[in-house]
């Protein structure tokens, strides 16, 4: 097609948006609402994952050491452990520190501990964190074989459960987001279809005057794209502000709840939403047009 024709189609698309204020507003609104709801789900899923990951990362392997180890031996062992593939961090907890921590955890029921105060029955230990929580089992098994290690424990059941919950949430979140994405496309396709339906006579007339399908289709596709992108911009704006407010609220009331920071996240989301909006608009228009191009 010639450049002139492209110019015509772009002008046409812009004109359509302006002329059909009502339908344009409606479509933009629907895209905005759909994308907003979709993003809320995505953010929810992302944050649950983040939460799960944070909790997972707190799962440690406890390596109890032989009481007879010298300071130098302990340091050497510690380096050895740190060198094991999959280990992220190792910290040393002396027998004394362990007792103090235990006391703190026991809280009020310290009667019990007073009884053993004079003769500390605990061992010094290494607290080992793995890079990937899934490696806990393998790393623990490897550590067991080291010289000077008496016992290796980790909360196997808790870790397993946590993984199950995180997995379920992850999978559920993905399914939900997928469903919502489909719902959005469906809603937008339908609303574009109504738009096209309202203009079916116009389309018919254009065809009778000798317009090719491409000439009729492109302004509608461009129009859909414009509407989709504008809708996504609105959704992004509202989302950004809401997330900021939510973050503040969480900071104030439940500060121990970890939340994904908004900085890189919202930027990426904005770009994805714009792309998704454009895609939805174009897809919606093209799906809807097919039927009315048969004149």
């Amino acid at each position, binding site marked *: *097609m*010639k450049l*002139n*024709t492209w110019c*015509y189609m772009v002008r046409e698309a812009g004109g359509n948006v302006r*002329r059909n204020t009502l339908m344009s507003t409606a479509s933009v609104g629907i895209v905005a609402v759909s994308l907003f709801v979709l993003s809320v789900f995505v953010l929810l899923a992302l944050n649950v994952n983040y939460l799960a990951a944070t909790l997972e990362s707190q799962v440690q392997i406890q390596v109890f050491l032989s009481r007879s180890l010298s300071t130098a031996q302990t340091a050497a062992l510690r380096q050895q452990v740190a060198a094991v593939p999959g280990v992220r961090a190792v910290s040393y907890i002396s027998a004394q520190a362990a007792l103090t921590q235990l006391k703190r955890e026991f809280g009020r029921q310290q009667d019990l501990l007073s009884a053993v105060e004079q003769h500390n029955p605990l061992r010094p230990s290494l607290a080992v964190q793995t890079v990937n929580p899934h490696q806990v089992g393998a790393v623990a098994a490897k550590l067991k074989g080291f010289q000077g290690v008496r016992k290796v424990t980790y909360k196997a059941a808790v870790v397993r459960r946590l993984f199950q919950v995180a997995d379920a949430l992850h999978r559920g979140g993905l399914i939900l987001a997928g469903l919502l994405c489909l719902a959005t496309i469906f809603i937008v396709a339908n609303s574009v279809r109504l738009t096209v339906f309202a203009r079916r006579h*116009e389309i*018919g*007339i*254009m*065809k*009778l*005057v*000798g*317009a*090719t*399908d491409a*000439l009729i289709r492109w302004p509608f596709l461009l129009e859909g794209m414009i509407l989709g992108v504008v809708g996504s911009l609105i959704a992004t704006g509202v989302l950004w502000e809401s997330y900021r407010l939510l973050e503040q609220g969480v900071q104030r009331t439940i500060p121990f709840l970890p939340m994904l920071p908004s900085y890189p996240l919202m930027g990426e989301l904005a770009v994805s939403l714009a792309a998704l909006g454009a895609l939805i608009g174009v897809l919606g228009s093209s799906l809807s047009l097919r039927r009315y191009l048969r*004149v």
Partner: protein
Amino acid sequence: MIELANVHKRYGRYEEALSGVDLHVDPGEFVFIVGPSGAGKTTLIRLLYREELPTSGTVRVAGKDLSRMRPREVPYFRRQVGVVFQDFKLLPERTVWDNVAFALVVTEVSPKEIRRRVPAVLELVGLRDRARMKAQELSGGEQQRVAIARALVHGPPLLIADEPTGNLDPTTAWEVVQVLVDVNHRGTTVVVASHAKALVDALRRRVVELAAGRVVRDEVRGLYVHEA
């Protein structure tokens, strides 16, 4: 130019709108199609620019068998035909200019050429000063003339007009018909379905009369009604 052979057309479950029509029109001819309301004039015309396909029989226009034409060829074929529809078929929310220019835009004529041709053809139908008004804001007769302008603007070799003067006063109608005659003199084949007895009788061109879907008369220099 036009060649219909034993054409039948039935809409859905209703009785036939055309039953066995044969018609041959040479390039450069001027043909009136007349007949009572519901005789099948519009149906015949719809077959000529392939809005409808015949139920049986063949329709050949400009050398092409329309039933055999592939869908992608249709737009290019339609650009060779100018059509004035009985119900105008204007884009109601576009300006007069846009409506007329559209027939040129589809053929990718340059903007410069469009700016030259559109005012000229609007002048011809007496609507030069209505160019910026929306089609839906025009009077019935003005809309009809916009439809005529759109059919003429790209200079098609075949011009088909369905009842092009139904909403025009006799003076304007006569002017419009003179435009059609002019176009015909410059070589365009013209087919006009019309009830305008006065015009048909004044021009004395070939008249094809339809009645209940059949050709009942075909006179070279005919009148609206058969000379008794």
